[in-house]
C-alpha cells in the first residue's frame, strides 16, 4: 500500500511537472494554431540557465528558479518577435519544418556551448532526502514540485477566470477574429502569452533537471510527451492538459514500477488507446480551426 502511495505521489509530481512544461505549447496551439515543436528548447534553456546560476555562480536555487523563468520568457519574446511571428499564417508543414530546424540548431548550439553530458543542479540541503508523513516516505524534491506547480496551476486558472487579461485571452483563443473585432489586441495578447508559456517551460526545465535529466537532447527526448499532453488534453482549456499530464505522469511512473520490462511503452499504449477512443482528444477540440 505504501508503495502504491509513493508511486501515486511520484506520478502526480511527474505529471504536474509535465503540465508546467507543456502548458505553454497548449496555449500556443489553441491561440494561434501554431505548431511549435521547438517548445522544449525553451525548457532546456531555462534548465541550463538555472544550472549555470546555481552551479557556477552560487546563486541560491530558489532565486535561480524565477531567473530561469525570466530568461526563458525573454528568449521567447525575442524568438517570437523576430522569427515565429512570420509563421502564423503559414501551412502546418512549414511550421513543423521551421520549428524542427530551430530545435536542431538549439540542440547543437547547447551541445557546443555546454557539452553533451547530462547536467545536474546542486540542490540545497532542504530539498534532499525524504520527509516521513504517516509512515510514507515523501521525497522532498517531489513535494516541492507539487507545491510549486500546484500553486502555479491555481494562479493560472485564477488569472484566466478572474482577470481581464484572462478574459481577453479566453476570448482570443475561442475566436481570434471576433476577439479582434471587439477591440482585443490579439497579437499583443499572444506575444505576452507566448512569452509566459516559454517562461513556464523554462521553469519546468529547471525543476525537471533533477527528475527528467537535462542534456542537450532534452527538447527532442521529451517532445513526444509534450505532444501527447496537448493532443490528449486539448488546447481550449487549462484543465484538459492538466488532467492529461497527470494521467500521463502517473501512468508512466506506475508502468515503470509494475511492468519494468515494458514500462516505457505504457505512454505509447495510452496514447494509442486514447486516440482510438477519442480522436479529438479527451477534452475537446485541439486545434482552433
Amino acid at each position, binding site marked *: 500500500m505504501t508503495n502504491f502511495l509513493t508511486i501515486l505521489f511520484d506520478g502526480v509530481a511527474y505529471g504536474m511537472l509535465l503540465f508546467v512544461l507543456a502548458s505553454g505549447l497548449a496555449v500556443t*496551439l489553441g491561440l494561434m494554431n501554431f*505548431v511549435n515543436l521547438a517548445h522544449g528548447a525553451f525548457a532546456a534553456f531555462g534548465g541550463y540557465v538555472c544550472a549555470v546560476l546555481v552551479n557556477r555562480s552560487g546563486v541560491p536555487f530558489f532565486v535561480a528558479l524565477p531567473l530561469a523563468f525570466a530568461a526563458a520568457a525573454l528568449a521567447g519574446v525575442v524568438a517570437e518577435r523576430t*522569427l515565429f511571428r*512570420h*509563421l502564423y499564417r*503559414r501551412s*502546418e*508543414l*512549414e511550421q*513543423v*519544418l*521551421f520549428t*524542427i*530546424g*530551430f*530545435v*536542431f*540548431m*538549439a*540542440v*547543437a*548550439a547547447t*551541445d*557546443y556551448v555546454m557539452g553533451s553530458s547530462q547536467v545536474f543542479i546542486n540542490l540545497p540541503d532542504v530539498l534532499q532526502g525524504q520527509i516521513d508523513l504517516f509512515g510514507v516516505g515523501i521525497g522532498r524534491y517531489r513535494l516541492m514540485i507539487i507545491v510549486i506547480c500546484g500553486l502555479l496551476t491555481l494562479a493560472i486558472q485564477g488569472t484566466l477566470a478572474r482577470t481581464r487579461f484572462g478574459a481577453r485571452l479566453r476570448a482570443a483563443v475561442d475566436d481570434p477574429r471576433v476577439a479582434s473585432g471587439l477591440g482585443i489586441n490579439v497579437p499583443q495578447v499572444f506575444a505576452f502569452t507566448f512569452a509566459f508559456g516559454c517562461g513556464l517551460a523554462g521553469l519546468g526545465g529547471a525543476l525537471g533537471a533533477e527528475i527528467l535529466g537535462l542534456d542537450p537532447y532534452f527538447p*527532442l527526448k521529451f*517532445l*513526444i510527451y509534450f*505532444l*501527447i499532453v*496537448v*493532443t490528449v488534453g486539448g488546447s481550449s482549456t487549462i484543465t484538459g492538459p492538466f488532467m492529461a499530464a497527470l494521467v500521463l505522469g502517473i501512468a508512466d511512473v506506475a508502468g515503470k514500477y509494475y511492468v519494468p*520490462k*515494458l514500462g*516505457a*511503452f505504457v505512454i*505509447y499504449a495510452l*496514447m*494509442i488507446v486514447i*486516440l*482510438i477512443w477519442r*480522436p*479529438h*482528444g479527451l477534452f475537446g*477540440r*485541439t*486545434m482552433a480551426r
Partner: protein
Amino acid sequence: MSDMTTLSPVAASTARIGRWRWQETAFWLLVVASYFLFSDRYLILTEIAWLALFALSLDLILGYAGIVSLGHAAFFGVGAYGVGLLAKHGIIEEPVLALLAAGLMAMVLGFVTSFLVIRGTDLSRLMVTLGIALLLRELANRFSDITGGFDGLQGFTIAPVLGLFEFDIFGRTGFVYCTVVLFVLFLAARRLVNSPFGLSLRAVHNNRLRAEAIGIPVDRRLIAVYTVSAFYAGVAGALFTQTTALASLDVFSFERSADLLLILVIGGGGYLYGGIIGAVVFKILQEIFSSITPQYWLFWIGLVFVVIVLVGRERMRRWARAAPEVLLRRLGLARGAGGGTSRGAEL
C-alpha cells in the same frame, strides 16, 4: 456543332496525361550514364538511390495526399531490421525476396497504423506518427538480444542478388541493384499518381469536403496510399541494410524522419521527381557540412530547415532558375550584358 468538336479539348487533354516527357527520359538516361561517369563514387550514389526511394514514399502521402508524418522512419526501420534478421537467421537469403518480404512487413505496419493516422486532427497525426517511430525504436532497444540494441544488428551477410551478383566493396552491385529497384517502384508510383486513384488523392488534399461530397470514400483512399507508402519506405530501408550491412537503432530516429521531410521539401512534393532531386541536394549538403564541422551537422541542417521555410521554396526556385542567366550576364556572355553590370532585376 457535332460531338467531334466538343470531344477534342477533352481528348487532347486526356491524351497528355502520363505521357513521358523528354525531360524525364533525359533524367533517367543521366542516371544510367552516372554508372559510367561516376565509377569511383558508387557508394554515395547508392545512398542517394535508396534515399530517393524513401523520399518517394513520403511524396506519395505528403506530396499527393497531404499527410504530414513525423515518423516515416518507422517503416524504413522495419524494412532495415527485416532484411537484416532474415539474413542473419537464414530465413530468406536471396536479397530480392528478402526485400519483398521486408517491404510487406512494413506494409502491414503501415496498414495497421493508418487507422490511427487518418482520424483525429492534424496535431494528433503528428503525435501518432512520431510516437509509432519512437515506440519501435524503444522496442528495438528493449529486445536487444534480437536486434543487437545500441550496437546494432551484427553478424549477418547479404547473399548475392538473384544468386548471381555479389555485393562488392566498390558498391557497383549495390548501385545497380538500388537503381533498378528505384526505377521499377518509380514506374509503379508514376502509374498510380496518373490514375483516377491518384487524382482522388489530390482531390482529398485540395478539398476534403468536396471529395466526400462527390462520393469518394476518403478514409479508404488514405489508408490505401499510406499502406503503399509504408511498403516503399520499407523497401528503402531494406536496400539500406542490404547495401551497407548495417541496421541499428538510428534507422528509427526522429532525425531520419525530419531529414526526410526536408529532402522532399527541397525537391518539391507532388510531381514524383522531387524526392530524387531532394536526395541529391541533401547528400551534397551533407558532404559540404561534414567537411566544415562534422560533429555539429545538426546545427547546419537545422539552419537549412529554417532558411528554406523563411525564404520559401518558390523564391528559391526562381533564384535557381535565374542564377545561370545572371552569371552569364556578369561574364558578358549573355545578351544585354553590355560590359558586365548586372542589374539582377530578375530576382
